[in-house]
């Protein structure tokens, strides 16, 4: 008989008053007892709808059943059949709109804490039995992956398991993409990302860092000169958007990408860091997505009073509910239905005020969300010595501009067919490079899909 407890087993977290002053992980994870207790809430449905909600279709009831039996390593092996980065996904997936959204228990009560259980299993494996997977026998085919973010790492892992000789080319000095430079330590400890990448290397995946495809060499040269028979482009959407406001180039105005890269990748928050970071006193973060929450919570941890300025209302905030709640608990103020119109500076070129206009919601737009409309004459100023722009990113034009035959749509996203092949034969693409900024797990799903397509393409060649 299943455990009919209506609520998810709570996960211990660091106290908000303590954690707002450190970069340590906020959510502390289940203990064995909590995990086993939560696992018994699963009804082990014959036709598990949760699996369909997972972009990489993890065999969810099967791994949960193993937890109930206290066979945690068995649970890990089941997850590993379909997911390459479980410790990451268990932490950063928006489960409420994926696997847990479909959970039958969620109709009446709270759904099973699938993400928390996945995280528990991956963490247990890492702490107790972190053995290297055996390197598969090579099938002699070479595949190049452009970008070591979630889509590239997943594609590489799946191909390596099938015996392909995979090389990942990464522009930064560290692999991981947004997992390393974007998502902060307090949501995703970097040691965990590095460990999952080491596991991939154990499968024989080669990672060449400091290599900018499009500059250090081109996609064409990788195929024609270096013998790669297929290429997967997982270069993401890393080009930050600005609003073209007067004063946007004042000192103290940053893109979220810059602010987060300095903090996460360059560890600029550490006392002995060699990379500088600006310590704001009062910071305005523009935007309402997860990146805005991350930037706001980082600024808070540097000691700032932080305001999120978002043009719609709480209902439309695109960030995960859990992140919004965590941000609120940490004292971040939400100035909703406001939009910046100008950045004002002092005589030394530093931002000192952000002029905003009040908004009201009109009719729904093509995205289905109610369109924000400025209220004439409602401008006002917020004092701030820092402004962080987190209003989205676009794909970097470098690869498309240096690769002949690659088509893009009007937003600069690569055009692919149903097999994720681009308009250039043998070149596949997935993740944010195709969709524009989206989620980690959808990028991983695309990496998986592309790996299957590349396997089919090279097997029939």
């Amino acid at each position, binding site marked *: 008989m299943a455990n009919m407890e209506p609520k998810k087993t709570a996960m211990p977290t660091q106290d908000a008053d303590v954690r707002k002053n450190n970069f340590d992980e906020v959510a502390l994870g289940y203990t064995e007892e909590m995990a086993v207790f939560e696992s018994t809430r699963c009804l082990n449905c014959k036709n598990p709808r949760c699996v369909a909600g997972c972009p990489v279709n993890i065999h969810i009831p099967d791994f949960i059943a193993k937890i109930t039996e206290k066979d945690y390593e068995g649970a890990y092996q089941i997850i590993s059949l379909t997911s390459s980065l479980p410790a990451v996904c268990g932490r950063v997936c928006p489960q409420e709109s994926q696997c847990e959204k479909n959970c039958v228990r969620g109709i009446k009560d709270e759904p099973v804490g699938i993400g928390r259980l996945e995280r528990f299993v991956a963490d247990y494996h890492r702490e107790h039995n972190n053995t290297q997977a055996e390197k598969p026998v090579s099938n002699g085919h070479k595949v190049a992956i452009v970008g070591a973010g979630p889509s590239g790492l997943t594609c590489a892992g799946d191909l390596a398991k099938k015996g392909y000789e995979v090389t990942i080319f990464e*522009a*930064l*000095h560290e692999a991981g993409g947004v997992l390393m430079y974007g998502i902060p330590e307090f949501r995703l400890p970097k040691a965990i990302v590095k460990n999952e990448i080491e596991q991939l290397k154990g499968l024989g995946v080669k990672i060449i*860092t*400091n*290599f*900018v495809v499009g*500059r*250090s*060499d081109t996609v064409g040269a990788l195929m024609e000169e270096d013998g790669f028979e297929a290429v997967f482009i997982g270069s993401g959407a*890393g*080009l*930050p958007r*600005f609003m*073209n406001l007067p004063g*946007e*180039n004042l*000192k*103290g105005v*940053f*893109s979220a*990408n*810059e602010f987060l*890269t*300095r903090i996460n990748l*360059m*560890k600029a928050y550490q006392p002995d*860091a*060699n*990379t*500088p970071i*600006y310590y704001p006193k009062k910071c305005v973060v523009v935007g309402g997505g997860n990146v805005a929450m991350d930037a706001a919570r980082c600024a808070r941890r540097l000691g700032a009073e932080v305001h999120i300025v978002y043009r719609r209302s709480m209902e439309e905030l695109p960030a995960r509910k859990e992140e919004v709640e965590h941000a609120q608990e940490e004292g971040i103020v939400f100035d909703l239905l406001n939009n910046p119109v100008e950045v004002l500076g002092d005589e*030394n*070129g530093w931002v000192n005020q952000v002029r905003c206009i009040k908004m009201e919601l009109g009719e729904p737009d093509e995205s289905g969300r109610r369109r924000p409309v400025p209220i004439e004459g409602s401008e006002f100023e917020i004092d701030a010595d820092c402004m962080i722009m987190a209003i989205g990113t676009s794909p*970097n*034009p*470098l690869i498309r501009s240096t690769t002949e035959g690659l088509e893009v749509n009007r937003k600069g996203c690569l055009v692919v067919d149903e097999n994720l092949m681009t308009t250039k034969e043998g070149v596949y693409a997935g993740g944010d490079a195709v969709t524009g900024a989206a989620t980690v797990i959808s990028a991983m799903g695309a990496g998986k899909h592309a790996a299957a397509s590349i396997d089919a393409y090279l097997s029939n060649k």
Partner: protein
Amino acid sequence: MYKILKKEVLNPTVTKLVVEAPFVAKHAKAGQFIILRVNEDSERIPFTIEDANPETGAVSIIFQIVGGMTMLLNTKEEGDYIHDFVGPLGKPSEIDGNKKVAIIGGGVGCAIALPTAKAFHNAGADVTSITGFRNKDLVILEEEFKANSDAFYLMSDDGTAGEKGLVTNKLEELIQAGEKFDEVVAIGPLIMMKFVCLTTKKYDIPTVVSMNPIMVDGTGMCGCCRLSVGGQMKFACVDGPDFDGHQVDFDEAMSRNKTYADFEAHAREKACNLLKKEVE
């Protein structure tokens, strides 16, 4: 890890390093740059590629010792390794062999101006080089410029090397004497490039400048290096570093370059103390 093949002290504050980096060497062109990290915990800093040899895989950079990171870099010797070294980054300079060009280099900017002068010279352009330094002890690359120029002028602030005066004095003198330059290329401190542009604007001579804002990734993902050019936002690392000098907002660029002045002063002091200790 990237091996230092050769180290050469050009003057008391300027050093040349030749680094083994075959991927960079293969495609490097005049005007492009690299980003390096000295050690595993170091900051990423940009340096222009002074020379590159695709056959040997050697890439040279010339740097001035101005702060903590360049002091640390200067402690590296031949045979030592640099942790990260990525490139070539940025757009190559536009080289036109049919032009008569004036290449203006200021201080360590001459190291960046040299590959551009060389590229124009090799393409068949008529090259006039004007290099400027504070005093004779700081002069670098004199012979290299002479070898790649049809006319060469050396200026110093105090007159201890070449002629006394600023590069802009010499440029204006040449223009007034009837030299017809199709293009001027200015590379050096922002203030020097600004004044070269003010000079050439008077005579309506197209002027290219190589901008040097603060950078982090150097691949277009953060916008730290953004500039206003013709009223539009540009990222120097991907749209440049070369821009039409008459369109650049130099005052904004100079202000933005001071963002971390306090941090940098502190880092420099720390490095001074630390590196002194290592010597003892």
